[in-house]
C-alpha cells in the first residue's frame, strides 16, 4: 500500500475546478451550475474565449462586480450580481431554456450527490425531508453536448459518490458524460466509468476501494496534476 491519506491528499474544490476548467474549449458556450461549479470560471485558461450562459436569461456574463457596484437587475441563476462581457445578450426564460434543451450549449457542469456508470445523476435532494427545490438542474442535464460533474470523490462521511446505482432521487437519467472528482477524472460511457486520470499518489486498488462502482481502464490512465501554488 502507498501512504495515501485520502482526507489530506485529495484535491480541494478549487483544484477540482481548475482541472475541469482545462477542458473548456476556446469558443465554447458553457453553463456552470450554482455553487461549486461556478468556481470553474475563475480558472478559465488564458486566451480562451468562453461565453457563459445563465438560466435567467443572460449570455456572455463576466466577473462579479466590486462590492457596492452591483446592479440587481444583472444577476445570475444563483442570484449573484454579475457584469457583462462585450457581446452579451438578454432574453426571456423560454429562450434561455431553448438554449439548454435545444443542444446549443457545449458544456454544462453540475455538482453531484451521486453519479452512476449509466450516466444517472442525483444532485437535487437527498431525501424526503425539508423543502424540495429543483431549479434548472433537471433541464441542464439535457441538451448540452457534454454534461460534466465536479464533486468530491467521497462524502464527508467517507461514503462513495460514484455508485453502481443512485439511491438518492434522480436529477436525470443517462446524462453525465464526464466526472471530475477530488481523486480522478472519469468518462461515463456505455454504462461504465472509464478512468482517464488519477492522482499519482493513490494506487488503483485504493481508488477502487473508495469508489462504489467498478472502474474501467481503456487506454492510458494519466496523472491528475494541478498547479503547485493552487490550494
Amino acid at each position, binding site marked *: 500500500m502507498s501512504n495515501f491519506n485520502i482526507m489530506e491528499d485529495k484535491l480541494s474544490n478549487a483544484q477540482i475546478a481548475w482541472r475541469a476548467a482545462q477542458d473548456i474549449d476556446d469558443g465554447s458556450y458553457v453553463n456552470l451550475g450554482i455553487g461549486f461549479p461556478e468556481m470553474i470560471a475563475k480558472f478559465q485558461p488564458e486566451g480562451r474565449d468562453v461565453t457563459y450562459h445563465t*438560466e*435567467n*436569461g*443572460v449570455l456572455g456574463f463576466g466577473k462579479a462586480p466590486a462590492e457596492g457596484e452591483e*446592479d*440587481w*437587475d*444583472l*444577476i445570475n*441563476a444563483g*442570484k449573484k450580481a454579475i457584469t457583462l462581457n462585450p457581446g452579451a445578450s*438578454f*432574453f*426571456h*426564460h*423560454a429562450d*434561455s*431554456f431553448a438554449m*439548454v*434543451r435545444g443542444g446549443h450549449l457545449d458544456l454544462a457542469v453540475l455538482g453531484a450527490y451521486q453519479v452512476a456508470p449509466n450516466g*444517472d445523476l442525483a444532485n437535487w435532494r437527498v431525501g424526503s425531508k*425539508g*423543502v*424540495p*427545490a*429543483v*431549479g*434548472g*438542474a*433537471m*433541464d441542464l442535464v*439535457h*441538451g448540452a453536448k457534454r454534461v460534466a460533474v465536479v464533486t468530491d470523490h467521497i462524502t464527508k462521511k467517507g461514503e462513495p459518490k460514484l455508485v453502481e446505482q443512485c439511491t438518492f*432521487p*434522480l*436529477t*436525470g*437519467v443517462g446524462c453525465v458524460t464526464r466526472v471530475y472528482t477530488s481523486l480522478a477524472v472519469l468518462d461515463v460511457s456505455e454504462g461504465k466509468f472509464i478512468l482517464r486520470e488519477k492522482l499519482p499518489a493513490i494506487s488503483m486498488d485504493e481508488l477502487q476501494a473508495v469508489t462504489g462502482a467498478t472502474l474501467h481502464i481503456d487506454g492510458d490512465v494519466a496523472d491528475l496534476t494541478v498547479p503547485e501554488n493552487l490550494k
Partner: protein
Amino acid sequence: MDKTISSVAEAVADIPDDADVMIGGFGGSGAPIELIHALIDRFRATGSPKNLTVINNNAGNGFIGIAAMIKAGMVKKMVCSFPRSSNAEAFNEKFLAGEIELDLVPQGTLAERIRAAGAGIPAFYTPTSFGTELAEGKPTEEFDGKMYVRERWLKADFALIKGEKGDVVGNMTYRMAARNFNPLMAMAAEKTIAQVAELVETRSIDPQQVVTPGIFVDAIVQVSEPEQEEVLVRTGVVY
C-alpha cells in the same frame, strides 16, 4: 385604446379569491413589488383576495413581495421551481407546517409550460425530469430513441409583471435580466397587469425594440422608482 391605470391599487382591484396569479421575476430581479404590495394592502383591508395560487420561479424571500403575501396568509399554493433559499423562511415555515401547497416544476419546464399556454399549445414533450420523481404519473414517449415526458400548458387568471418602459397600448421593454419570466407570463394569463418604470404617453416605443407587444397586456400602471426585491431583502425591509 388606453390601457393606463392610475394606481397600483386600482390595477389589482379585480383579482378575486381563489385566483391563479402569475408573478414575474427571478430571484431579486424583475418582481413587480408594488403590484404585489397593493394586493397585500387589499387583503389586509378587505380579507380578499385569499386562497391564491401563485406561480413564480421562487417562493418569496425576506419579508416583502411574495414572502409577505405568504406570511399574510393569502396564498394557498405555490407553483415554482426553487422555493428553498437562504431567505425563504415565510414559505418554509408554512410548508413544513403543512399550511401551504407546493407544486414543484423544473425551471425550464415551468418557462415552457407558461409559453405554451400563451401560444395555444396544450401539451408538449420535454426530456426534462424523465426518470425522476417529478415525472411520476406523467405520460412518456420515445422520439428518435430518446425518452420524453409530456407536460401541459400552464395558464393563469392574472399575471402581475414588471417592465422598464411601456406605452398606453401596453407595448413593453424590460431592463436587463429583469426580463426573465415577465414576457412569458404576459402571454399566459387571462388578464395581464404590468407596472413599468416609465410609461410613455404617446405610442412611441420603437416597434423593433418592443419585447412584449401590447396585445399581451391588459392594464399598465407607472411605478416610477420601483423597489428592487434584492435590495429590500438585503436591508431586511418588512412589508
